[in-house]
């Protein structure tokens, strides 16, 4: 356990979401140490500006910072997120869409029934194995309700948020400055290393040399320190995840605010639709190998029914991650560390977890320099990347669209050994949760239900051979009972717009 901090000065390069997340967390957690934190961002190099969907870990992150929802949510036009609805990922009309929920304690209640019907479906019985009807979050999303647990219906409910990434960066910036983080606008165009290769200082375009004993690289896809300077090897996911481009646009809000992200498969990728209190954020993530940016823009424009005059924004992205997230005296957080692609909105989860794990690694370090847990940290991060990558990859492998070469290519690569094992287990109708546990996958972001929802929701089942009547009565699940349970439970939750209005008022 550290009694004093091994660092006196930390420089964070980059003022995107990752930079401010890092600044706030380090400042808050190490507020009692004699530590100077400075963030340097370039006004010539913009932030990526997207990144509006999150996973539930972000909630805990804000809690650790001591920032209440009523403070930050209205400031960032934030809304609640119950999960993601995936539309048109399957060509089977019975599986046109499905919902991937965040965990609800109440889902455990009929989990056994869901699992049982999945097994029966594999044995060819025409039972109800589509996940939506079993899940509370799906019902809440359907009714545009907020996933906030009421006092009289106090069951655990995980949820996340949607927010305006630019506003969030501004909000966190304000907080960080209050917490004594200093801020400098400058572009770094040189990095100086010590003999051992570690970073000694960074030099701004005006020639100022800024030294520190530790650096956090939040420079986005540029990966100025980790990638460019320290030359940590990069593991690309481009072979299995084809998307490398995105086209984005904001559109007007609807009368009521949805509490979910929509992910709709298009001809060469998929489109997100994220509700904020004042607008929707929309983006089409596609593969430039299969569609030109112009064609993608045109398809997306039609998809959104927007006029020709609509102004889109184009982005390039690189999928993969650096073999280490923490090398020498550099920690990379955000896009500079890696990116899996926006499906399932996991990037900010990586950013927050990276900085949380880093603080814990240093605090629990057994050496004075604070590095004794560095290898373990890097291994854990790599593991997280590969587990989450497998899950995202499964979306593509499990698609059943036949309309374009893109979708055929998306499912035609060889999965990792682990993913192959999961798929084989599924096709054999055996227990996927057991394999997930054995492979320690379920310790990561996506638990059992997520995997089962994906496979069942996309209708990855053999053709049904027997009607439900062929089953002994005791094995027939009363779907009406489950429906009643889920619908009655949903009654207890507030309407999303009411919950948002209450936040504003408080």
């Amino acid at each position, binding site marked *: 356990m550290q009694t004093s901090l091994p660092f006196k000065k930390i420089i964070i390069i980059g003022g995107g979401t990752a930079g401010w997340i890092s600044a706030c967390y380090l400042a808050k957690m190490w507020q009692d140490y004699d530590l100077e934190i400075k963030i340097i961002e370039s006004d010539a190099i913009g932030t990526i500006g997207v990144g509006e969907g999150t996973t539930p870990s972000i909630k805990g992150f804000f809690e650790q910072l001591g920032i209440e929802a009523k403070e930050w949510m209205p400031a960032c036009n934030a809304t609640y997120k119950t999960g993601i609805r995936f539309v048109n990922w399957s060509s089977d009309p019975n599986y046109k869409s499905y919902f991937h929920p965040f965990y609800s*304690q109440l889902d*455990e*209640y009929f989990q056994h029934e869901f699992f049982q019907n999945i097994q029966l479906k594999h044995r060819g019985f025409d039972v109800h194995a589509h996940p939506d009807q079993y899940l509370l979050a799906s019902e809440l999303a359907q009714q545009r309700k907020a996933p906030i647990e*009421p*006092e*009289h*219906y*106090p*069951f655990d409910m995980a949820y996340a948020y949607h927010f305006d990434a630019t506003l969030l960066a501004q909000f966190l910036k304000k907080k960080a400055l209050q917490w004594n983080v200093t801020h400098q606008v400058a572009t770094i165009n040189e990095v100086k290393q010590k003999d051992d290769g570690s970073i000694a200082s960074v030099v701004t375009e005006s020639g100022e040399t800024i030294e520190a004993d530790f650096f956090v690289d939040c420079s986005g896809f540029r990966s100025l320190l980790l990638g460019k300077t320290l030359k940590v090897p990069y593991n690309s996911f481009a072979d299995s995840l084809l998307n490398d481009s995105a086209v984005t646009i904001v559109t007007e809000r609807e009368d009521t605010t949805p509490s979910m992200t929509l992910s709709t498969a298009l001809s060469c990728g998929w489109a997100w639709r994220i509700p904020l209190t004042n607008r929707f954020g929309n983006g089409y993530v596609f593969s430039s190998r299969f569609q030109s940016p112009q064609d993608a823009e045109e398809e997306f424009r039609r998809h959104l029914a927007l006029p020709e005059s609509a102004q889109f924004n184009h982005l390039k992205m690189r999928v993969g991650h650096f073999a280490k997230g923490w090398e020498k005296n550099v920690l990379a957080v955000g896009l500079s560390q890696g990116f899996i692609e926006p499906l399932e909105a996991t990037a900010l989860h990586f950013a927050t977890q990276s900085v949380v794990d880093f603080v814990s690694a240093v605090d629990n370090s057994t050496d004075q320099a604070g590095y004794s847990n560095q290898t373990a940290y890097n291994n854990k991060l790599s593991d997280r990347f590969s587990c989450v990558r497998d899950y995202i990859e499964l979306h593509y492998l499990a698609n059943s669209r036949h309309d374009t070469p893109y979708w055929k290519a998306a499912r035609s690569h060889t999965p990792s050994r682990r993913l192959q094992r999961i798929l084989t287990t599924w096709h054999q109708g055996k227990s996927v949760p057991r394999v997930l546990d054995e492979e320690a996958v379920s310790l990561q972001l996506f638990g059992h239900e997520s995997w089962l929802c994906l496979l069942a929701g996309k209708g990855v089942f053999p053709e049904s051979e027997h009607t439900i009547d062929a089953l002994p009565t005791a094995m027939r699940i009363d779907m009406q009972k489950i429906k*009643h*349970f889920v619908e*009655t*439970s949903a*009654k*207890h939750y507030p309407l999303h717009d009411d919950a948002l209005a209450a936040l504003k008022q408080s």
Partner: protein
Amino acid sequence: MLPIPQNITIVGLNVHGLLTALLLRKTYKPAVTGITLVGLKEEDSPPKAYIAGKTLNTLLEHFGYSEANWMRQTQATFKLSNRYVGFSEQEFSVANASEVDILHQPLMLELSKLKRQAYQLDLSLDDFFFAAALAKRNLSPKAQDFPFETDYQYQVDANCLFTLLQKIAAEHSITTLPSTLETLQLDQHGTLKHIECEDQILSGDYFFDCTQSAQLLIGNMPDFRQETLPEVRINDRVLTYTLAAECCASEVVTTALDCGFVLQYTLQDAVHFQYHYSSKFIQDPQAVQLLERHISQQGYKKVLQRHLSASQAYLVSQPWIHNCLAVGPACGLTQGSEDHELSHTFAMLEQFVSSIQSPDDAKDVIKNYNHRIKSRFVYAHSYHSTLQLLNSRRNSPYWQTPQDANALTPIGRSLFSQWLSGEDLSVEPVLDINGLTAWYALFSGLGHYPTGELKPHPKSRAIQDNIQDMCRKLAGCCLNFQTHDSLIAEGKHHANITAV
């Protein structure tokens, strides 16, 4: 295969006789099956309360009486839990099952195991049972838009129930014969041919003996034998008091007193105490004094009725012999700290009806019936005798008689040894009597945890947080439930309007 009954004769004009008649009538239509009930109503019936399960409601609803209606007529209230007081240092509850409990049962199992492994944990299993949480707040089992089912029972006034059942029987082709049994006639195989009542001869293909401990039919069957249920401290007396009461609890309270225990039932406008004690250890006048003191400590004053009777535990070895079945106390009586009398009767008739439908050989069907029914009694008795043997009360000679764990029934013994060795409990439970969690509640409530040096648990803080979180959740769920008092008052109000 057994023949479908065409002519049923029931002896015993009491709640069990009437329930038998009505339960059979529900299955067998008058055009096919004649049902005759013979007996004289006992003069001056003692006050008594029963615990009834949902099966009573199903039966009465079948005959057109809504829950609110029949509850009003029988002064019934709800029962969610049984609270045990004075058997050990802490009082504890054995609660009815609730679907809410499913969500935190794994935690309960894990923590009760840790505590048995000598970890220092502040643990009361009461916290894990939702029905107990409701009962402690004096709530009813009814809520709007609360999709978890919580099992509940009823506390019913026996005499009012008798009157209602009698009325229903009269409306539904049950022939009642106010007469007493004189003789019975068996054929050479030992089958009951007919019975003679004053100047009438009543034949039947099936005879039901509902004559309680008199056992007028079954007691005269050729292979009749009676077994005593091994009792540790034989309670041979029951002293009952009924008092006026204003508010009504949704639980039964069982309190250990010197030389026995008192069951406290709540009826609408009344509270009913049953003191089961052993005359070997206490004289009747002292028992009266003791019970009266207990009653006044509870704040009750206005005595409406009192009664003293003898009681004994027994079980017939074959509840069904040839064409004669013993139902109700005629079959057996466990000296329960919980009352299963009516639930046994319902189970017997349900089992009888399914036996008639069975395609198997008649002999096997009857054998199976006898086995099942006896198992119920033995199971109920096991629970009771475990409570009697393993409690830690030592304040009178009655409670100081040697505590010999070997006197536990095989079920009790096996479960207790599983408990002590830190295993998960496993037994084939008779669910409408007591599920597995009731055994956890019992062993834990009686304080059977290691003593001496306890180990601190490395995650004790997180464990206590978990428990607190669960209690918060249960308390939150309780907010959905109507108070017991207001629900009962609503029922009365509704009945008044209907009457007008």
